[in-house]
């Protein structure tokens, strides 16, 4: 019998007998990029999930040691390529922190405006692909239709739809074109009913609730231990948002803005809008809550964009002067985390006084958020792996860099 034999054949046989070792990815429809998840499954029940990363590694940090900060901005675009604007912002703020730059009023509001639009665009992708992960194709199209409108707006601003390099150190590359604000307002006006549509198709759909409630429950302590941030952390009921709780050189950007940090505190979400109720089946920290937090954050962002438009209109027409590409950096280091759509995106710059940083470093939120998956997927079904993975909303460009 083959059973008595030793060697690699037996190993293969043994794995086959009891447990199936399957590779989800790197070419798999629901790994959101080139992620490989090694799933050890006994029938349909998953016993172990190991994410394997690195397929999208592009030496971004090493490149950062060979180009000037402004030259590195296009590389930050390619980290979270679904929210390039927010990546630009993170790096720009970090270098500005090092340079101790003060920005004019208009640039500040413009940045809020653009960053929150970027957040909406990113959360739309998260919601749409999450529907796709659960087998519902149509919300994906709806989300991307709206995202396209945002991308149109971005295209008007900077000429690019994916890799913008728009927000730059010392301000932005160019002020808004004439008529842009009106178009943005038109977008926001038609966007509200779409949110309700998405709530109807996903958030409050009975099958969606069955697929997400009590799946991948992430306890707040575990989330903090693993360094989860962003909607993943807030989905576990931790009210933590760098826009409110971050360093002053980041939070002063949001000074005077009204917005709620979306997290379930004391059993309830902030109710400044009409939302579908939390289903009885859902427990705090499960996939449903993570999704819900994102959906509510979209509404907050819409409010922020409206406020920013108003303030931008009232501000004097000066949106800052970008630093020269070859500008020398002061000796020292600066680290700043910003609230990117997917979590806290941290950038670090260490300078020895030259124009080119001695070290450029990025801290990815998706990386920490992904690391928790082996914790969440233990004992779930194969079908739940995409459900959990989708709810974490990772982007591989940021993890692998």
């Amino acid at each position, binding site marked *: 019998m083959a059973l008595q034999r030793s060697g690699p054949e037996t190993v293969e046989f043994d794995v086959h007998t009891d447990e199936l070792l399957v590779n989800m990815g790197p070419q798999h429809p629901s790994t959101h990029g080139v992620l490989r998840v090694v799933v050890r499954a006994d029938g349909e029940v998953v016993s172990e999930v190991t994410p394997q990363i690195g397929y999208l590694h592009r030496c971004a940090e090493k490149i950062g040691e060979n180009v000037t900060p402004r030259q590195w901005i296009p590389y930050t675009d390619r980290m979270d390529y679904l929210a390039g604007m927010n990546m630009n912002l993170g790096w720009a703020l970090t270098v500005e922190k090092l340079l101790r730059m003060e920005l004019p009023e208009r640039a500040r509001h413009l940045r809020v405006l653009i960053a929150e639009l970027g957040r909406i665009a990113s959360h739309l992708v998260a919601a749409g692909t999450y529907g796709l992960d659960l087998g519902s194709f149509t919300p994906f199209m709806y989300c991307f239709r709206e995202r396209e409108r945002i991308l149109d707006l971005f295209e008007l601003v900077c000429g690019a739809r994916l890799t913008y390099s728009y927000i730059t150190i010392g301000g932005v590359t160019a002020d808004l074109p004439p008529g842009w604000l009106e178009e943005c307002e038109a977008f926001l006006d038609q966007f509200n009913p779409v949110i309700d549509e998405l709530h109807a198709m996903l958030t409050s759909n009975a099958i969606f609730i069955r*697929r997400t409630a009590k799946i991948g429950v992430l306890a707040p302590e575990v989330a903090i231990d693993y360094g989860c941030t962003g909607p993943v952390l807030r989905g576990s009921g931790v009210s933590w948002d760098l826009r409110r709780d971050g360093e002053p050189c980041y939070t002063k950007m949001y000074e005077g803005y009204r917005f709620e940090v979306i997290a379930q505190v004391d059993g309830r979400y902030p109710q400044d809008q009409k939302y579908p109720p939390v289903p009885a089946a859902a427990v705090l920290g499960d996939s449903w809550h993570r999704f819900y937090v994102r959906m509510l954050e979209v509404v907050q962002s819409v409010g922020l964009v409206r406020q920013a438009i108003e303030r931008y209109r009232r501000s004097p027409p000066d949106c800052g002067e970008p630093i020269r590409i070859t500008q020398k950096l002061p000796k020292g280091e600066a680290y700043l985390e910003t609230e990117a759509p997917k979590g806290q995106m941290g950038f670090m710059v260490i300078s020895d006084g030259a124009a080119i940083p001695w070290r450029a470093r990025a801290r990815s939120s998706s990386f920490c958020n992904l690391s928790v998956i082996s914790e969440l997927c233990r004992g779930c079904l*194969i079908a739940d792996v995409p459900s959990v993975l989708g709810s974490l909303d990772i982007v591989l460009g940021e993890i692998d860099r």
Partner: protein
Amino acid sequence: MAELLKSFVPVWLAYSTAAAVNAALLVVLALMVAAVCNWLERKVAGRIQDRLGPTRVGGRFGWLQSVADGLKLLAKEDLIPQGADRLLFRAAPYVSFCAACSLYLALPLADGWVALQLNSAVFFILAVAGLEVLGVILAGYASGSKWSLFGAMREAAQVVSNEIPLALCALIPVMIAGSMDLVEIGNRQEGWLTNWLVFHDPFTFLTFFVYLTCAVASVNRAPFDLAEAESELVAGFMTEYSGFRWGVFFMAEYASMFVISGLAAILFLGGWNGPVPIAQWLGLTRDVGPLAAWLGNFLGMCNMLLKCSLGVLVMMWLRWTLPRLRIDQVMTVCLRYCIPLAAVALLGAMWWTYMWPGGW
């Protein structure tokens, strides 16, 4: 036809030719249905998703999209994975397709317009619909891929639990009509809308929806398309298939979708009888004359095709609206909800027909 040919060629050749032509007609019917459904699916999906769907191929509405798709599939390379069981891998799509085509044998399109009037046609259709699964299981196993195997296992589990409520639901109209002959069941619902079995009593009304659920599950359509769940199992049992063989599976799926909604139409929705007895008003009945009967049947066929397409449309609507269930949830739906509901409906319908044999 054989009678006509007999005068020209030897008898056996005449019969064989006639048989071949008839068989070809059935297959063509199945293929036509698949092609139309394919186009319809794209259009429906497009409209639901706020886009246009195919618009270029063959004119404004992309009528020829299915043909273009077919050509594309034919031109694709037909890959067989190295670890596959080559014979079974090749045979599996045809098992499914043959089963799907055989379904059309017993499906009447109008009064007496059926290839083979079986007196246990309901039974035959349910049985052959179950056969289709076999192809899926074979494909899943023979592909030599773990994803395919997962798909096949799911399919097997799903089907075993699904056929029971489906058969129970089909039993109720059979019991009321007192026949398993689809033609007879259809003819029994002649006349007004109220004669349709779905409106026979509250229990049949309930049964109709249970049947619909099980029917969607039995043809592997979303939200029960677990065997091919693309976000979990890549493409389930179809992962390793490409080109023509994949197309064969695809056609089998649409062909059986159509039949299963045709079965629903005959069992519950009056079959070829419209909501109002137009054919009777126009005098298109059998006792008027052969031409009138033919015209009446033609009207009935249009009616029937309309109802089948309606069923298919509902399935598409579901697919593009709902997320997918999980395998244990599918089993729960079948075993915990559908079977008891169907059983209650069966007993209830039995009681109803016993109390009010004439109906109300």
